[in-house]
């Protein structure tokens, strides 16, 4: 072994000291960031409690979210989105400040009514949480409303949890005869072959072929392509395990209403527009209408612009998001609606008595990602 010279030893010492200083600076920066996040999250919770968010403090830091009586994006959007948002904000991440409030359970006991789309969004949020804590969540259904247990069972909610013993724990009520739900499909897969499974399941629960299916399939293909291209961009640092999309459907026999629901938990259409090749045209569209994109109604307007720009200028551009493809199923069936909920905006296209109608809405609470709902009567 060669003996180091005093000059070399000094150089090595300097290098080690410099590295230590760097690491400690990095640590201080990170801890400062986590402190800021904790403060932001805790203040958000305080504000929302004043506005009616039902949270139980189990300890100074551990909290339980008590879900409301009804969760439905049509009739109770604000409250439904608020609770889903609260789960996202409070569910644990790998690194958090020790003062940050931490979600340890979700109380379903008050929940009595839930739409299929709210069920899918809730399932997706809990699945995301479960993935982040190495699948340690366990549903305890003792005090759940039987209808809610059934709804979740049909949706496939309990299959999420590897530690679930729900089937053994409770005697399940008879299934609701009127409403059938397709077990949700969760995928990170970029191809669209899994939509075939949805088709066969919809045939099973409705007892018939879905007329004009090809146009729904076309819309689903584009929704899946959009997830791969725009929903989880690298700049947002999503974990690979979180880059999912979810799909389900339901059929109510008494009204013959069929619903198909697609959901991703990405950055949302309004946020993905500036980076897309559609942005220039959307911006132009907004300018023509003298719309300031910085206003409170930003998401609603961007969402509308994204659909309208493509709808009115298809053929001139080959770089859209395929949003008009999503309208086609409703249009070809001649009735029903398509709703696109993304962040704080809603775009709803409907056909009633042969008349096409477009409605847009701005909400106070944001829904993370994009929820697409098709409804038609068979």
């Amino acid at each position, binding site marked *: 072994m060669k003996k180091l010279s005093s000059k070399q030893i000094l150089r090595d010492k300097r290098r080690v000291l410099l590295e230590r200083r760097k690491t400690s600076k990095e640590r201080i920066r990170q801890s400062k960031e986590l402190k800021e996040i904790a403060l932001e999250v805790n203040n958000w919770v305080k504000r929302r409690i004043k506005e009616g968010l039902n949270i139980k403090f189990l300890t100074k830091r551990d909290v339980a979210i008590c879900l409301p009586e009804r969760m439905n994006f049509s009739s109770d959007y604000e409250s439904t989105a608020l609770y889903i948002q609260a789960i996202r904000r409070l569910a644990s991440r790998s690194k958090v400040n020790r003062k940050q409030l931490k979600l340890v359970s979700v109380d379903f006991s008050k929940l009595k009514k839930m739409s299929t789309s709210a069920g899918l969004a809730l399932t997706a949020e809990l699945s995301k949480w479960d993935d982040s804590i190495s699948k340690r969540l366990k549903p305890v259904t003792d005090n759940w409303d039987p209808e809610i247990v059934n709804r979740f069972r049909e949706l496939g909610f309990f299959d999420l949890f590897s530690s679930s013993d729900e089937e053994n724990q409770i005697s399940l009520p008879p299934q609701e005869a009127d409403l059938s739900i397709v077990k949700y499909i969760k995928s990170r897969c970029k191809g669209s072959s899994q939509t075939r499974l949805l088709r066969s399941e919809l045939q099973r629960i409705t007892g018939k072929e879905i007329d004009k299916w*090809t146009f729904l399939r076309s819309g689903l293909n584009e929704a899946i392509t959009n997830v791969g291209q725009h929903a989880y961009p690298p700049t947002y640092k999503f974990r690979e395990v979180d880059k999912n999309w979810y799909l389900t459907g339901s059929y109510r026999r008494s009204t013959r209403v069929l619903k198909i629901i697609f959901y991703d938990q990405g950055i949302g259409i309004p946020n993905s527009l500036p980076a897309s090749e559609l942005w220039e045209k959307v911006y132009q569209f907004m300018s023509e209408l003298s719309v300031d994109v910085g206003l409170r109604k930003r998401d609603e307007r961007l969402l509308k612009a994204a659909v309208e720009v493509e709808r009115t200028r298809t053929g001139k551009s080959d770089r859209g998001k*395929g949003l008009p493809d999503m309208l086609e199923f409703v249009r070809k069936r001649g009735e029903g609606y398509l709703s696109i909920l993304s962040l704080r905006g809603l775009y709803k296209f409907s056909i009633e008595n042969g008349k096409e109608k477009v409605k847009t809405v701005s909400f106070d609470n944001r829904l993370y990602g994009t929820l697409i709902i098709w409804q038609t009567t068979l």
Partner: protein
Amino acid sequence: MAILNVGVDFDKDPSGRYYTDGPASGERFREEFLKPKLGSLSRDEKLEIIIDGEVEGYGSSFLVEGFAGLVKHGYFSKDFLRNRMIIKFSDPDFEFYRDKIWMYIDSARFRSEKYASTKR
């Protein structure tokens, strides 16, 4: 007459624009199936493309990249495609996709973009 049955020869679930969008993208269809087939046609021979059968439906991104990309990247002119490509289907709902294919081809600008593969 040469035949290309999308659902049998390519994939029964065509979807996505680029290679990065999945295994049955428009870019893959164009580069590995449609372009070679069209390129190998003998004088006056036509290519019949069957778009239904096993296939349930198409999104715009697949159709634009798969068909209009032939013009955009300067592989074939619009006239050549009009003369040599016959789009066939037996399901009347697929007329919609045929019309879209021709609309995208008609609105594409010849050799307007140099092709750069997205294959990883």
